[in-house]
């Protein structure tokens, strides 16, 4: 498992019903591509986050398949519609089977 994997997510605190909001996510992860070699010329095995999903109250917002060409500390910015108050669930799936999760509440006035 990659060390010190910390997800960071920015979601507005409140919104009006049906508003389109911008979400920014960042997760610290080395995203080892499998193309690099160590000092002895041996390839370093691939170790990346291969999938990222964002859901709001169980409904999908975005589902991203990541390949080794995504940079270290994968960053995503996208937009979501908020029909009602609830929580965003962010999930990252690691190659080694680990799953990292974060949730953010949003209040709709």
């Amino acid at each position, binding site marked *: 498992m990659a060390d010190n994997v910390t997800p960071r997510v920015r979601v507005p605190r409140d919104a009006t019903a049906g508003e389109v909001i911008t979400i920014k996510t960042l997760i610290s992860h080395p995203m080892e591509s499998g193309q690099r070699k160590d000092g002895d010329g041996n390839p370093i095995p691939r170790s990346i986050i291969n999938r990222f999903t964002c859901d709001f109250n169980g409904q999908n917002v975005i589902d*991203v398949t990541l390949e080794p060409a995504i940079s270290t500390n994968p960053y995503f910015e996208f937009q979501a519609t908020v029909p009602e108050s609830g929580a965003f669930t962010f999930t990252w799936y690691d190659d080694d089977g680990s799953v990292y999760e974060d949730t953010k509440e949003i209040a709709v006035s």
Partner: protein
Amino acid sequence: MNLNRREMILLATGASVAAMLPFRASAAADEAINAFTGGAEVGEGGLTLTAPEIAENGNTVPIEVDAPGATAILVLAAGNPTPAVATFNFGPLAGAQMASTRIRLAGTQDVIAIAKMSDGSFVRASKEVKVTIGGCGG
């Protein structure tokens, strides 16, 4: 340096393999496109791919794709050792069919985006990015 026949043949084979490498890279990209579109015709327009003209560092190149009405967008870097970069699938609550991220580019090359529209058609956009320092260093 004296080369015998066997060494000459080896050298010649090596040179022709090296010459074929760029072609093979784009063939892999075409394969990835075919796998995504299922061989359907790919049109133009309706998809915006934003990427810098010159990227100093190939390790983090910011890109943005925007295709109103798309259900999925595939991003490819034709000149990378493996051309696939990412696939964005938009769910029912996606506010707009856009996303931005940061990608690795091995060198100067075309970044290609293919969007699958809700009516089942496909559109394509590409942009050349000049890379000063490649992002696949070993």
